């Protein structure tokens, strides 16, 4: 059976880009959380979550992202989200005011460019 969502990682030096492709909901959010947490080591400075391939994100996914931001802030690591402007996920991120908490970029390049050097 195909998994609902697939997570892949790209290493850009101090910045880690995680691509979440597919749907994130109550059934797989814990799994995705575990994958991402395992991938984010202490030595990276920024995590860019690429949600452009995320076709569905529910409120449990949003909750996870709030938690992730909290956690990374505690470790002095940055979090940026990449979301397509007109996508359903963008609407969700906007409605839950996640965009007030985490910076949103329209593309990976924009995100990488915006990473503040530490």
């Amino acid at each position: 059976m195909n998994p609902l969502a697939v997570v892949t990682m790209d290493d850009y030096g101090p910045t880690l880009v995680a691509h979440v492709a597919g749907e994130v909901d109550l059934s797989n959010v814990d799994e995705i959380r575990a994958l991402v947490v395992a991938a984010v080591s202490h030595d990276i400075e920024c995590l860019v979550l690429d949600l452009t391939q995320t076709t569905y994100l529910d409120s449990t996914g949003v909750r996870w992202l709030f938690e992730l931001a909290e956690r990374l802030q505690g470790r002095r690591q940055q979090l940026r989200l990449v979301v397509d402007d007109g996508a359903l996920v963008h609407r969700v991120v906007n409605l839950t005011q996640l965009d007030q908490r985490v910076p949103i970029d329209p593309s990976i390049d924009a995100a990488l460019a915006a990473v503040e050097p530490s």
Partner: protein
Amino acid sequence: MVWSAGPGRSSTWFNRRWLEFRGSTMGEELGLGWVDGVHGDDRARCLEAYSDAFERREPFSIEYRLRGADGEFRWVIDHGSPWTTDDGHFAGYVGSCVDVDETRAALEEFRIRERQMAMVADLGRYALEVEDEQDLLDVAVKLVADGLRVSLTAVLRLTDDPDWLQIEAGTGWDETKLGTLRVRADPTTMAGYVLATDGPVVCEDLPSEARFQGGPGLRAHDVTSALSAVIRVPGRRYGVLGAYSPEPRAFGEDDVVFARNVANLIGAWVARRAVEEALQESEAEARLAFAAGRMGSWRWDPAIGEVRWSPEMAAVYGIEPGSFQGTFSSFLDHVYPDDRPQVISAVEAATTAEEPFSMEHRVVLPGGRLMWLDGRGAPVRGADGSITGWIGVGIDVTERKLVEDELRNRQLEVRLALAAGRMGVWRWNARTGHGMWSPELEDLVGIDRGSYDGSWESFIAPILASDGPLLREVVSAAAERGTEFAVGYRIRRPDGGTRWIETRGRPLGDGEWIGVSIDVTDRRGAEEALRDANERLEETVARLDTLLAAAPLGFAFYDQDFRYVRVNQVLADMIGLPVEDHLGHRISELLPGFGPEVENVLRTVKETGLPVSDIEVTGQTPAQPGVERHWLANYYPVQAPDGSLLGFGSMVVEITERKRQERAARLMAAVSELLADSPDLDAVLPRAAALMVPELADSCALYLLPRTDVARRVAIVHAEPELAEKLLDADRRWPLDVSRMLASSARLRSGKPVMVTNVTEEMRTSFAQHPDQLELAHELAVRSSITAPLHVGDDVVGLLFLDYTARSGRVHQPDDVELVGALAERIVLVLERSYLMSEAERANARLDLLAEVSELLTVGLDTRARLDAVTDVVLPTFADTCVAYLVGPEGLEVTAGKIADDRGSEGRGTTSIPELADCPAVPVDSVGPIALAFRSREPVLVSDVSPELAALLNPAGPEAEPDFDVRSALVVPLLADDEPLGVLMFGYRAAGRRYAVDDLALAREIARRVAPAVEDALRFERELATAEALQRSLLPERLPVLQDADVAARYVPGGVGLKVGGDWYDAVPLRDGRVMLVIGDVVGHGVRAAASMGKVRNVLQYSALDGLAPAAILQRLNAYFCALTDSDMATLFVAEYDPVSRKIRYANAGHPPAFLRLPDGTVEILDGGRSMPLCASDQSQYHEAQHDLRAGSTLVLYTDGLIERRRESLDVGLGRLRESLRSAPSNVEEVADTLLRDLLDQGAPQDDVALLCIATVAAAEELRLRLPAAPRQLAHMRNAVKGWLARAGASDKDIGEITVAVNEVVANAIEHAYGLVDADFLISARQVGAQIEFEIQDFGRWRNRRGGGDRGRGLDLARALMDSVDIHPGTDGTTVHLSRRLERETGEQ
């Protein structure tokens, strides 16, 4: 055993088991060969039913005897069902045969018992009516012959020569032997042996019998087996009942019980007859006693206006017995006309107040003479306390009245004499300085009557001063010497005239003088006048002396403070103190018991100034302490001449003896009245005891001793009811040791009452069995006691205790002993009569009870219902409390229980024991009768239950409040094959009722009938539970979710009998969205059928997933099942639905056809693809048919339980299904509910029912999803929602956002409503124009929104995305409505 037959009735096949049973080959049985095996007596009936069924092509059930391989016939039930080929042709019958021989034998045996019980009940009814002993015996022996199926029976009665018994009645004997043939009454003969051992005797082989020999009578009839029971009559030996058989046979326990019941009924009848005869004699004696006392009794029933007089009453009235008219007005006719108003008002007052009355009135006797009658009456109350009538006695008291009148007349005479002689009487008391003048003396002196003030000054005032000194001299001289005196002097009257007066005085002692003064002025000479006066004085004094001393009359004078001023010797003797000891003392000082009452009367006299006549005074005196005495008294005022009150006089006559006679007569009459009372021993006993208080006792205890067939009973009545309760309670703790009691007194043993008038501490101590009992004895403080044995012949059957306590301080008198003896004799008659009548009735009631118990146990198969019924039925005949315990893991668990509402036997209402589930289990190894009966497997009888033991019997647990008040208990184990299942506890809470050894038999009988019924029900429940569990486990847990079709299924287990297990359905999702729908029915029921079904299911699922088509699946299943040795037939309908082509193809193995409802509502029957049931033949070929299943269609698969009803053709059921389906709603769940509701009767169906419905949904019409509440279902749900929204024409944005909202609500439900536990939720959606509405329904309760950042965010999200979100929490789930208006696609505008 299974068989099949062709359409031409000849058998075509028998299974292996049939052939094994018959011990024959297939060849021998085929055709009609099997008919040879049917019992000759059953053959015609069997063939007729068989042919008849074939003609009508209906299922049949025939019961017949079939010969087995061993040549023995056994009863079987043969069920056959017709079957048809797929083209609808009748193809013959398939049948199965079950061996029911053992059930049948048990049933036969049961019928015999029922019949015996009915016979005994009939005999009981006959015995209540029959007058002649011979008639009864003749009926009884015929009954025994019939009931025990023997030809020879006999009743042998002891002759006057106690060494011989004589056959008085019998069947099978030469007529000349009856009433003549004699048998020795010693233990060498069977009858003698039975008489000697006092019990039923069974002899199975008389020639080899070691205990006794058969007499010539039995030998002449070649008797081999015999059953005899003794006929018992209390107080004497009667005889023997026998049943004899020439053929050897066994007599079972039931036969013995039957014979004993018949014998007991004969015994009860004879005893009752004897008592009735004795009673008639005793009545005659009572009449004599009545007549001697010139009294009689009467009874008045105001309701019917009837007055009945005893013959003695008529005699008292001087009329012929029986000539009294019997109405109240005819009674009044006898009353002296002047007294009638008084009689009427007395009766009216009594009936209004409902209290006893007494009155005296005159009666006109024939011939005109008047009689004074003392009439007394008391109300008779019914069980409910209302007055049912009045009884009373009438006593001729003319003689007493005459004495009283005489007394008054004499007083009058003296007065007249005084007035005629112009003389007056005076009294003078030198001590008190008080005097008294008669009215005549006042006339003489010329002052107004009553104006003399009693003083000396007034006494001498009229005397001329010149004559004073002489008078004083004479009087003082006489006073000094204590002699009479005579003196003449002159007085001046107020009118101025002077008169010559002669006065004579005489000392009466104690300073008291009496004298006569005569006016001699007009007399010729003083001498003459004086002589005359002297004579008159002599006469007057003589008369006064007669009054004062001679008559049994007590006189006394009291001063104003009720102190004795003067007392005559008679009264002093009555009181029991010397005359001097009275003087100066108040009445209440000397007579504290009733003195205050007398003083009250005197106060009335004082206030009114009028005398009080003829009042009765009762009390004890120092003369006879402890003896209650009665007097008739008159009290009158004594006034000074000026009218002022000087004091009081009294005149008293003792009537104690007469009162005691009246009391005796009244008590005897009252006890006799009890004979007419209810025959209920438990009601009569306390009434008899109550009669004794307070007349003969302050406390009365009446014991009826236990006998073989009656429990001991006690009634205790005390003037203070609380003490009676305490005494009853003490009796439970320390039951009276009767044998010790009897051993201690030869007089008691000889049947005579014993009186102890001075009960000592030593006696109390020796009587008490416990310090608490001694303490109670001190509280009771018995002073005087009479103990009377109640005996029938030489047997003491009871004891009567009559105790006077410190309460009254009374002491029994010697004549009380005689009275108590006579009362005891009469009480015995009353009790014996009640006992026999109630025992006879009870025996009948108990037999009816057994029949009722047996009957109840044949209905229903639920242990609790069965035990409930039993506890219900035994009340109130055999118990007023009944609790059933069944053993469980915790111990003995209360399963059913009933308690009579009222503690009395009259209470008919019952209460179930509340909160059975809350009653703690009784550990099997605990103490107490319940666990003991269970462990020992023997009944436990506790005739008298102590409070401690009662706690252990409390179903609510020993610690529970309130206390469980059971007085007598009997616990009997329920044994199945000697293994205890539980116990039945019977209890009496009503005082007085006790279980006895004889009750054990009935309790055992009840248990013997209940136990197998309970075992059956338990086994049934176990198997039912197993089969149902198995069944449920085989049904799919959930049905597949299809894109464009909804599936609903139902399974209803059969409610009655072991009907669960054969029916089953399945829906197997296949590739490409196809689904295999299956419904099936395995022949048979129970665990075995369920297991067979499991096999079918596995093979079918495997075959379907393997890609086989319906017919191929059936082919494979048939091959598989025919190959198995031990499999049952099954019918099966298999259909495959392809959503792409919207078609089904199906095959039918002997199953009822499927129904299809088209979108336009017409209903079609899918009757193609029909073949033989599975396992009918290994040669069967299975075919397929197919049909369109357009959107909006509903397909219904079902098992025959849905359409079959008894005595109804299948077509009717099919028609009903068609009708119901036609009008059912469109929603598939509702279709299933509607079909079940329309086609099944109320309650559980006879057979189990499976139903599988599939409805294809027209796309984008409505979305309906039923999904498991699991997170992994969310994606699937979203796809379905998206697909539906797309079909509904929503934009991508609408689709995405609405999906998010729906997902949030569903996720919320999954997470919060269920806590991630499996359950379903429902989603439905519809489109109304541009409006999209969703409804999400779950079956849990949402938790409150927790702090921020939680799931509340999900709902916020949904609210942000939808136009409206409404949450409706309900009791069994939450429903959320979402709605949103779709954006219009720009392209469409």
